[in-house]
């Protein structure tokens, strides 16, 4: 076995030092009959070449996004990732290290986290950000729980623009913790509805912008309305790149901002691992979940970084912790921060603009087909269209022409009346040829 250094000779010598006859003696605590005396019924070990062949066979049964004209968003986005990002995150010292509990030999991870936290705070225009959650959806559940702790209230209202998977995750997680979750019916562009659903026990209203239909919203009046009723505004997003172009939630009064960071530095990976971005105001810091890297000095007075405020966390606080999270999205934060450092403000604005322009071109091209209606008025790089036929049927027909044309909204939330709604996205990776091919194919299919 190429991964196991011990030889049979080593094993015999070691057993002699231990004073055991066989390794089974070391399993003496296992109840009788429970110690298996032969390998379980699975294939035996294989060489690297054989395993690689098998895995490539599985991979070849998929159609990767890059082999098609590809227009999917709805929570995961295909962007170009500079080659240096994946090279750097595979450095042994980043890839094969643990959570930086020994700061003197983990300054690389800690400084990168400190830079990550600063970049997230700057992007979202918030005071502080943490060192990541698992993803946007679980982060949203943590935000709801945090809002309940801050306000000492137990009801949370979710807008109808929140990604349905996020809403389900929040409901599952938070109802068990004793919160009442009110998820408003799907609505393309009616984030203000959360204010009408507030009551005196509402801890937070949760609004997504850009929302699952791509619509962007002025959060200022929602923040004002929430605050007037004693609730927090939790602002969410699934496309972090949008903030290269649109007003960030922190500038419009959000108290907690939580969303998905995948679109910067991280590949699609069929849904994971991704990276949850989580930011808030300093005054709420001690109620916040997750790890935080902070600046300090060493015994010589030199600047260094450590994990801090850990008295909020499960390994210290146990059942009184702000969250049970331990492992988070470490390496995905590294990919995020490297990509963001390569972009800088200039690059971010440019890539965001290219996304927006491609989305506008795509909307114009699709809307040229009679019967196809663009439902989203203000958007960044994705929008919803209503088709004259069921969206899933159109999608199958598009696939036959090598086009993966979007996500039927009904797949995310089987709502009556939404069967013909398709969520469509364009990024900087789409070419004019892709867009023209999509428009031509759609015209042929729906006419």
């Amino acid at each position, binding site marked *: 076995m190429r991964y196991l250094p*011990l030889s049979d000779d080593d094993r015999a010598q*070691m057993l002699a030092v*231990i004073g055991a006859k066989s390794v089974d003696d*070391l*399993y003496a*605590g*296992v*109840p009788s009959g429970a*110690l298996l005396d032969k390998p379980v019924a699975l294939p035996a070990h294989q060489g690297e070449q054989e395993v690689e062949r098998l895995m490539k066979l*599985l991979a070849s049964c*998929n159609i990767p*996004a890059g082999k098609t004209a590809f227009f999917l968003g709805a929570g995961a986005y*295909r962007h170009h990732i500079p080659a*240096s990002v994946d090279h750097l*995150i595979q450095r*042994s*010292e*980043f890839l094969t290290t643990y959570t930086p*509990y*020994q700061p*003197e030999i983990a*300054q690389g*991870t800690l400084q*990168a986290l400190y830079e990550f936290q600063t970049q997230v*705070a*700057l992007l979202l225009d918030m005071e502080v*950000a943490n060192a990541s959650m698992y*993803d946007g*959806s*679980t982060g949203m559940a943590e935000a709801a729980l945090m809002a309940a702790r801050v306000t000492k209230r137990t009801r949370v209202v979710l807008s109808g623009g929140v990604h349905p998977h996020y809403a389900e995750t929040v409901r*599952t*997680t938070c109802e068990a*913790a004793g919160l009442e979750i009110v998820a408003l019916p799907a609505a393309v562009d009616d984030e203000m509805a959360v204010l009408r659903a507030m009551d005196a026990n509402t801890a937070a209203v949760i609004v997504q912008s850009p929302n699952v239909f791509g619509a*962007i919203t*002025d959060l200022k009046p929602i923040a004002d309305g929430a605050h007037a009723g004693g609730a927090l505004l939790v602002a969410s997003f699934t496309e972090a790149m949008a903030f290269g172009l*649109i*007003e960030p939630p922190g500038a419009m009064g959000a108290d907690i901002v939580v969303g998905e960071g995948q679109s910067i530095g991280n590949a699609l990976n*069929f*849904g*994971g*691992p991704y*990276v949850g971005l989580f930011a808030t105001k300093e005054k709420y*810091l001690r109620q916040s979940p997750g790890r935080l890297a902070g*600046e300090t000095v060493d*015994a*010589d007075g030199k600047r260094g970084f450590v994990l801090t405020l850990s008295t909020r966390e499960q390994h210290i606080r*146990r*059942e*009184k912790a702000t969250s*049970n999270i331990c*492992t988070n999205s470490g390496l*995905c934060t*590294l990919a995020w921060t*490297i990509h963001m*450092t390569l972009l*800088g*403000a200039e690059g971010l604005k440019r890539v965001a603009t*290219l996304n927006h*322009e491609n989305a506008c071109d795509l909307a114009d091209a699709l809307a040229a087909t009679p019967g196809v209606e663009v439902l989203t008025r*203000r958007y960044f790089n994705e929008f919803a269209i209503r088709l004259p036929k069921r969206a899933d049927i159109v999608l199958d027909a598009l696939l036959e022409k090598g086009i993966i044309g979007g996500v039927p909204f009904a797949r995310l939330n089987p709502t009556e009346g939404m069967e013909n709604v398709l969520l469509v996205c364009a990024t900087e990776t789409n070419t004019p040829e892709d867009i023209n091919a999509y428009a031509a194919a759609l015209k042929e299919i729906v006419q």
Partner: protein
Amino acid sequence: MTETVSGNRGLLQAEALIFETGSLARTGVDMPAPKGRANRLGGLGRKVAPALPGLSEPEAVRHYVRLSQKNYAIDLGFFPLGSCTMKHNPRLNEKMARLEGFADLHPLQPTQTVQGALLLMEELARWLLTLTGMEAVALSPKAGAHGELCGMLAIRAALQARGEGETRKRVLVPESAHGTNPATAAACGFIVDEIKATEDGHVDLEDLKTKLGPDVAGIMLTNPNTCGLFERDIRTIADLIHGAGGYFYCDGANYNAIVGRVRPGDLGVDAMHINLHKTFSTPHGGGGPGAGPTVLSPALAPYAPVPHMVRRGEELALVEHAEDAEGTPFGRMCAFHGQMGMYVRALTYMLSHGSDGLRQVAEDSVLNANYLLARLKGHFNAPFGGQPCMHEVLLDDSTLRPHGVETIDLAKALLDEGYHPMTTYFPLVVHGALLIEPTETESKAELDRFADVLIALAERAKTDSAHFKSAPHLAPMRRLDETRAARQPKLRWKPVEALKTAAE
């Protein structure tokens, strides 16, 4: 120590923050110029550009390579962090995870375009179920603690289905448990009730019996436990908890010791998460990402969350909504289908080892730990050392403390010796705990070197506590002031000029 003009020390480069070296005008990415068409942002365009500095590619590469060199890592040396299973991370796993047929798949692509991904998930599930002897698996949890949440939510749902959701609120948790266990139970609305450990490091059965009652929802028990021991009474514990009407959650953090040799399904377990980033070698990445698939017994299987896969003839399909499921799923753990990137790595590892190799993994990890125990127990106190351990050795600092050296000092002295320390001050049931997990991917020679170093340090502690108190001396940083970091939190960079102006 010799001071240098540059602040560098030979190969170790001093490295400023990107906010101190980058520029708002610089970028390391070339892109075509936008067309300049009118936007559709409806007046919601960003008013003030974010102050995000950029670096050119050579500057960025150098920045992160320099940072990397301030980190310790498994690839650099022995990393015996107890409870964390820091084993070798095979590079084949990384290569496979990057195949475009896996990495360049969108989670919401039509299922007919991702049959290979679903096949991979089905195969991973088959391996996990065969190895554990359990009924069903929820693949989607994103880490160990998330898997705990999944298991406890399944227990909650099963109790609700029995009409006992409101009456069974108490969850028993040994005082030696990982902090995630009580935190998870509390997050599901349960009340945590601690059970004691015996003097030899096992669950105190008598204490457990007194805590049982009609309000008990279940027990959360780590096996092998955090003291490094197999819970010899585990079947009795399972019978007792089941007899009282509760369920048995097993924390699978220490599964590496028994993979391929003991099936949790044979022990009466109802739910257990499996850390793919421990037992199945996916890299820890400086704190994640992980994956925590959760296996379930027949009693809990109907409550498994969405999504899950179903076979429809030749095709695999995803059940993404509770109303489409055969059972009664308790809900959804996260967006999409979980940590696909980790599934690819874990299955690659499983296929490489096979059933024979995985069994050898468990045996070698246990053998390595017992070998260290045998070599060290004459030099350190081993509080439960009168019995074989599983894959971790638990020592404490009781023989060092009379000389003024504590666990933290020994840990910091190990940094100077070129080792990552063991887990310190955990489990909480042992004062000044030192929890050593060598894993199976260390050679005998490496274990001998480490044992020699620890023995020499134990000797040195008798006469030279000052060496330990001021350690580390040779690490990239001296001991860091964690109290200051917590008292005056500085969690992000702010421009010095702005601070100066504010002060004036």
